[in-house]
C-alpha cells in the first residue's frame, strides 16, 4: 500500500479522536516549549552581549590597572596600537550640597572619563540627547537612582571628596555598563580633570584605571592584546578584547542557561513518560480497530505505518507549536524582567536552540512512543473474538535499536551543547537515576501488592488490587507522583536553605558599616570619633591594597591557556593585606605564622581552598603584581577562612614587612553595640565621612539587601524551572488517571450493581491513592533531601540547613494535592450510570 493511501486511512482513523492523543500533544508541547524558551532566551542575551562586544568593553582592547595610572612607556605602547580612551573608576560617597543641616550621602561608582569616551556606542541622557561634547571639570552626569536617593534634580550641586559638581544631565544608558561588572551604587560620571579635583585619587586609594583602545579596522585585537602583554610581562594588567566584553556576565548567563536547560530536559524526559503512557493508552483503545483492520486484510507493517503517521503528525504539531511558543516567549520574558537582565535584546529568532529543542522533542517521542507502537501492531485479528489477557509484550530488534540510538543521541546532544559536558552528563545521569529508581519502585509496589495476603475487608482488598491488576497505572503514577513530591521537597529545602543562608550569614554581632580609604595614620581619630557615638562599638581596621596574581609555583598565569577549575582568584585583581597575627575569622590549618617582628624575605599565608585549587603547598611561591611591580613571596601557612563571619576575609595575607611601606589605606569595620539602630548607623557614617572626606562608607544592611535580591532571583529561576517539571509531572499524573479510567468505570459500575454506595467507591480510590501517596512521600523525602543537599552544597557552595517544618508541610500539602487530583479525576467514574456504562462496556 502506498504511503498516501496509508495516510488517508490514518487521517480518517484519527478523525475526531485527536482527544486520545491529547496527552502526547500536551507533554511534547510543554517540554519542547520549555527547552526552546530557555535556549532562545540564553542565546539572545549572550549573542546580544557578544554583538555589542566593542560597546560593552568600550573599545577593541581594554587594559585595566589597579590603584595606579599607566606609566609613560605603557601609554606610548597603547597609543601605538590605536586611539586610547582613559577612564578611572572608584567607589565614593556623593554628598548633597544644599541649605540646611542634612548631609545626605550615598555610595556611588564614580567614574572619570576623558574626552574620547565613549569609543563605541552612545552615552544617552534621560531627557534625550547624547554625550557629544567632552565634560568640563565642573559637571557631573548621574544615574537616576542617585537623584532619587539624594532627592536631587538636574542643576543641583553634589560633592565628591572635596570638590563640588553641577549635575548637568541624568544618564539613561551607559554603553559600557555591563563591562564594568558588579557595582554597589549608582554611577556618577565626571571628567578626568574633575576626578582629579575631588582629591580622592591618592596613592593607596582603591581605584581602577582602564585604557580602552580602538584599533584600526582590520586589525586583530586578540593578537595585539597578546603582543602588548608580552611587552610588559610584569605590569599586572587585566587585558580583555572585544570578544569577551563581559566574560563574567556571559559565563553566568551561559551557566544559568545550561542549568535551566538541563532542568528543562528533565521536564521533557518526565513528559516522555506521559508521551509513552498517552500513546500506549491511545493504542490500547484502538485494539479493536487494529484487529478490524487485520480482519480486513491489513498487515502488521500497514498497522505500524498507519499509527506511526498518526503519532508523527500529532508529535510534529506539538513540536512546531512548542517551537513557536518558545520563540515568542523570550521577548515577553525580557519585557517582564526588565532591568534584571544585563542587556535588553530585541526580537530575534535563534535557530540553533530551536533546532536543539525540536531534536530533543523528536528523540523523546521516538524513545517513548515507539515501543508501544511496536507492540500494538502485533494485536491479533482474533482479538475481536476474545479479550486478550496475555498481552504481547515483545519489542522487535529494530525498535530496540532505534530507541537505543535515540537515547544515545540525547546524551550526546546534551553533552555536546553544554559548556560543562560532565556536569550535564552528571545531571542527566542523576535525573535518569531518580526516574529509574521510581520505575523500579513502581514495579516493586505492584509485585508486593500482588503477593500481599488478601485483606478481609472487600474495599481494602479492591484498593490493594487496584495497585497490581492488569492494566493498572501504578508504574506511571509512582513516577509522576514520586517525582512531583520529590520536587516539592527539593524546592522547599532549597528555598528555606537560601533564606536561612542570608539570616545565618549575618552573625549576631555583625559589623554595621565598612569604611574604605581611611588614611593609615589616622586610625586613632577614627576610633575616637566612633567611641563618641557608641562607646561599646568595636572597630577593626586592616590595611588594604589590590593586586593580581601573576604567577604561582612554576606557573605564569599569562601562559595558562585556560584557568584551572574554580580558580576565580586568578581573574582580575584581588584584595591584599598584611598582618602581624592570624586575622580574626581565619584559622591556621597548616604551616607556621611568621614571628612578630619578622623581617626576612616576603612570606604569604593563603586560603587553604585556594591552595588546593591551584595545587600549592607550603614552601611554594606566589607572585602578585602590585602597583606595577611584582612581589614573589613564599607560602608559609594555609588558613581556613570562615566566609560567613562577614569580617575582613583576605585570600592572601602577607608578612607586614612585605607591603607595609607601599602606599595604601585602611579598611575599617564598625560593629555598633545596638545592631539595627539606623540612626546610630547614620551618625557613625557621617562621623567617618566628616573626618575623612575621601573615605567610602558601605552600610552592611545595603549590601545584604543586594545579596538578598540576588538570592531571590536565583530562587525564582529555580522555582520557575521546577514548576515546569512539576507541570509535566502533573500532566503525566492526570494522563495516568485518565488511562485507568475505563477499568475503574467498569469496577465502579459492577460495584454499584452489587449495591456499593458512591462513598464506598470513592473510599476505595482514596485508599489506593492514599497508600501510594504515603509511600511516595517517604521516598520523596529521601530523594529530595539528597538532591537538594547536592544542589546547595556542591553546585552553589552554600550550607544546607533547610527548615524541616516547612519542608514537611510542603510535602504534606503536595501529597494532599495529588490525592485531591486523583479523587477529582475519579469523579466522572463515580457518576457513571450502571445501565449506560454496561451497554458500552
Amino acid at each position: 500500500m502506498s504511503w498516501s493511501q496509508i495516510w488517508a486511512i490514518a487521517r480518517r482513523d484519527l478523525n475526531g479522536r485527536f482527544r486520545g492523543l491529547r496527552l502526547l500533544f500536551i507533554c511534547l508541547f510543554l517540554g519542547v516549549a520549555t527547552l526552546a524558551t530557555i535556549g532562545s532566551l540564553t542565546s539572545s542575551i549572550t549573542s546580544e552581549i557578544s554583538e555589542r562586544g566593542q560597546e560593552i568593553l568600550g573599545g577593541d582592547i581594554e587594559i585595566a590597572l589597579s590603584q595606579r595610572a599607566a606609566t609613560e612607556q605603557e601609554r606610548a605602547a597603547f597609543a601605538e596600537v590605536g586611539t586610547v580612551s582613559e577612564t578611572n573608576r572608584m567607589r565614593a560617597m556623593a554628598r548633597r550640597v544644599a541649605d540646611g543641616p542634612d548631609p545626605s550621602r550615598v555610595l556611588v561608582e564614580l567614574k572619570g572619563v576623558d574626552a574620547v569616551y565613549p569609543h563605541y556606542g552612545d552615552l544617552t541622557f534621560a531627557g534625550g540627547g547624547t554625550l557629544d561634547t567632552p565634560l568640563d571639570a565642573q559637571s557631573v552626569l548621574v544615574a537616576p537612582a542617585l537623584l532619587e536617593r539624594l532627592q536631587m534634580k538636574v542643576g543641583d550641586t553634589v560633592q565628591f571628596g572635596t570638590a563640588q559638581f553641577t549635575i548637568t544631565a541624568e544618564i539613561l544608558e551607559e554603553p559600557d555598563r555591563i563591562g564594568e561588572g558588579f557595582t554597589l551604587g549608582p554611577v556618577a560620571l565626571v571628567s578626568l580633570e574633575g576626578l582629579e579635583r575631588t582629591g580622592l585619587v591618592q596613592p593607596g586609594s582603591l581605584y581602577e584605571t582602564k585604557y580602552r583602545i580602538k584599533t584600526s579596522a582590520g586589525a586583530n585585537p586578540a593578537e595585539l592584546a597578546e603582543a602588548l602583554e608580552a611587552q610588559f610581562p610584569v605590569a599586572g594588567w587585566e587585558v580583555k578584547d572585544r570578544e569577551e566584553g563581559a566574560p563574567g556576565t556571559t559565563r553566568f548567563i551561559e551557566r544559568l542557561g545550561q542549568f535551566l536547560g538541563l532542568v528543562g530536559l528533565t521536564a521533557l524526559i518526565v513528559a516522555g513518560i506521559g508521551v509513552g503512557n498517552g500513546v500506549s493508552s491511545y493504542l490500547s483503545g484502538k485494539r479493536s480497530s487494529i484487529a478490524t483492520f487485520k480482519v480486513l486484510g491489513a498487515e502488521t507493517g500497514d498497522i505500524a505505518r498507519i499509527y506511526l503517521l498518526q503519532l508523527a503528525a500529532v508529535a510534529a504539531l506539538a513540536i512546531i507549536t512548542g517551537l513557536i511558543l518558545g520563540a515568542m516567549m523570550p521577548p515577553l520574558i525580557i519585557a517582564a524582567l526588565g532591568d534584571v537582565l544585563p542587556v535588553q535584546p530585541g526580537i530575534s529568532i535563534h535557530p540553533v536552540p530551536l533546532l536543539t529543542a525540536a531534536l530533543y522533542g523528536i528523540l523523546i517521542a521516538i524513545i517513548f512512543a515507539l515501543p508501544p507502537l511496536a507492540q500494538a501492531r502485533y494485536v491479533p485479528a482474533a482479538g475481536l473474538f476474545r479479550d486478550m489477557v496475555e498481552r504481547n509484550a515483545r519489542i522487535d530488534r529494530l525498535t530496540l535499536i532505534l530507541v537505543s540510538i535515540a537515547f544515545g543521541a540525547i546524551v550526546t546532544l546534551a553533552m555536546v551543547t553544554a559548556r560543562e559536558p560532565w556536569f550535564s552528563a552528571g545531571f542527566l545521569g542523576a535525573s535518569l537515576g531518580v526516574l529509574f529508581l521510581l520505575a523500579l519502585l513502581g514495579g516493586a509496589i505492584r509485585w508486593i501488592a500482588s503477593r500481599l495476603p488478601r485483606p478481609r475487608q472487600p474495599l481494602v482488598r479492591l484498593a490493594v488490587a487496584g495497585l497490581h491488576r492488569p492494566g493498572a497505572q501504578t508504574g506511571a503514577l509512582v513516577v509522576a507522583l514520586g517525582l512531583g513530591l520529590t520536587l516539592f521537597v527539593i524546592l522547599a529545602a532549597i528555598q528555606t536553605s537560601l533564606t536561612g543562608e542570608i539570616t545565618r550569614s549575618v552573625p549576631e554581632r555583625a559589623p554595621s558599616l565598612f569604611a574604605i580609604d581611611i588614611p593609615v595614620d589616622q586610625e586613632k581619630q577614627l576610633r575616637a570619633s566612633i567611641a563618641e557615638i557608641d562607646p561599646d562599638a568595636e572597630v577593626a581596621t586592616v590595611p588594604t591594597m589590590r593586586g593580581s596574581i601573576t604567577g604561582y609555583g612554576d606557573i605564569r598565569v599569562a601562559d595558562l591557556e585556560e584557568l584551572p577549575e574554580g580558580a576565580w582568584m586568578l581573574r582580575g585583581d584581588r584584595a591584599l593585606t598584611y598582618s602581624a597575627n592570624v586575622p580574626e575569622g581565619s584559622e591556621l590549618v597548616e604551616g607556621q605564622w611568621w614571628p612578630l617582628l619578622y623581617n626576612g624575605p616576603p612570606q604569604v599565608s593563603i586560603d587553604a581552598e585556594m591552595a588546593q585549587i591551584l595545587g600549592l603547598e607550603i614552601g611554594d611561591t606566589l607572585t602578585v603584581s602590585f602597583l606595577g611591580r611584582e612581589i614573589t613571596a613564599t607560602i608559609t601557612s594555609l588558613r581556613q577562612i570562615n566566609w560567613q563571619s562577614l569580617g575582613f576575609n583576605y585570600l592572601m595575607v602577607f608578612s607586614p614587612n612585605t607591603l607595609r611601606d607601599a602606599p595604601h589605606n585602611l579598611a575599617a569595620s564598625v560593629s555598633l553595640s545596638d545592631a539595627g539602630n539606623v540612626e546610630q548607623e547614620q551618625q557613625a557614617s557621617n562621623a567617618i565621612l566628616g573626618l575623612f572626606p575621601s573615605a567610602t562608607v558601605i552600610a552592611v544592611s545595603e549590601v545584604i539587601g543586594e545579596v538578598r535580591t540576588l538570592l531571590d532571583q536565583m530562587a525564582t529561576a529555580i522555582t520557575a524551572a521546577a514548576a515546569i517539571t512539576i507541570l509535566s509531572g502533573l500532566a503525566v499524573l492526570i494522563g495516568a488517571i485518565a488511562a485507568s479510567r475505563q477499568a475503574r468505570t467498569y469496577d465502579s459500575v459492577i460495584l454499584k450493581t452489587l449495591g456499593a454506595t458512591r462513598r464506598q467507591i470513592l473510599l476505595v480510590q482514596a485508599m489506593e491513592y492514599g497508600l501510594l501517596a504515603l509511600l511516595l512521600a517517604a521516598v520523596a523525602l529521601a530523594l529530595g533531601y539528597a538532591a537538594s543537599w547536592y544542589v546547595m552544597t556542591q553546585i552553589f557552595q552554600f550550607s544546607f540547613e533547610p527548615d524541616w517544618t516547612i519542608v514537611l508541610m510542603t510535602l504534606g500539602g503536595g501529597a494532599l494535592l495529588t490525592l485531591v487530583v486523583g479523587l477529582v479525576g475519579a469523579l466522572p467514574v463515580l457518576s457513571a450510570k450502571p445501565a449506560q456504562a454496561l451497554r458500552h462496556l
Partner: protein
Amino acid sequence: MARSSDQTSHAAEIVLEARNVTLTLGVADAPVEILKGIDLSITKGESVAILGPSGSGKSSMMALLTGLEKPTSGEIVVSGTPIANMDEDGLARARRGTIGIILQAFHLLPTMTAMENVMVPLELDSGDAIRDRAQDALEKVGLGHRLGHYPAQLSGGEQQRVAIARAIVGQPDILFADEPTGNLDGETGSEIIDILFERHRHSAATLVIITHDRSLAERCGRIITMGDGRIVEDTGIREDIAEPAAGQDAA
C-alpha cells in the same frame, strides 16, 4: 491467492477444507481444548450454517477458517492454498479479496464514515475505483443515503448493513457471517438475513453463517452442527432446500 475465475462452473470445486484441525488455548499448565479434530470441506457456491450452542466451538472454527487464528494442529486450505502455517501478515494478504467477514458486534471503525469503512478493504488491497465500488456496495445494502454517516449515527441494523457492504465490496469467494443478527432485534435481524441471502443468490460466492438459531440455519443449503468442539452432525448439501444455484446473475 487466485480468485476463482470460473464463476459459472457447477463442478464441486472445494473452496474451503479443514483436515483434522485442533485448537488448544490457554497457558501450558491449564490448556483448554476448544476444537478437537475437525474435518470439513465446503464447495463453491454453497450456503452453510454452522449451528451450535454457546461454547460449542463454532466461533473458534470460524476464526480458524478465516485465518484469524492459527490451529494448534491440522491443515486448513482456502481456495487451494494451505494457510495453517502462514504468518499473520501472510494470512492478512490471503484474506484480501478471498474472504469477507461479518461480525456479531459489527466492528465498524468508529472514527470513519460508512463510506470510509467500506473503502478500507479496497485500499488495503490497493484497488482502483475505490469510491465508486464502495458506494455501489452501500447502495446494494440499501444505504445509499447514509454514506457520510459515522457508526454512532447509524442504527444497529444500519451498522450491520455497512459491515455487510464492507465484507462484500471486494467480491470475496467466501463470505463468513458470525451471528450476524445476534445484536439486532428480530425484524431488523431478518432484514439483514434477507440481504445476505439475496446477495448469495446473485453471486457465485460461498456463504458461511455461524449461528445458534436453528430457524436461520434452516435457510441454508447445508447445516453443520457443533457440540463440545466437534462436528456432531453434517446434513450435506440439501438440494431441495438450497437457495437457487449461485452465479445465475452474478454481479
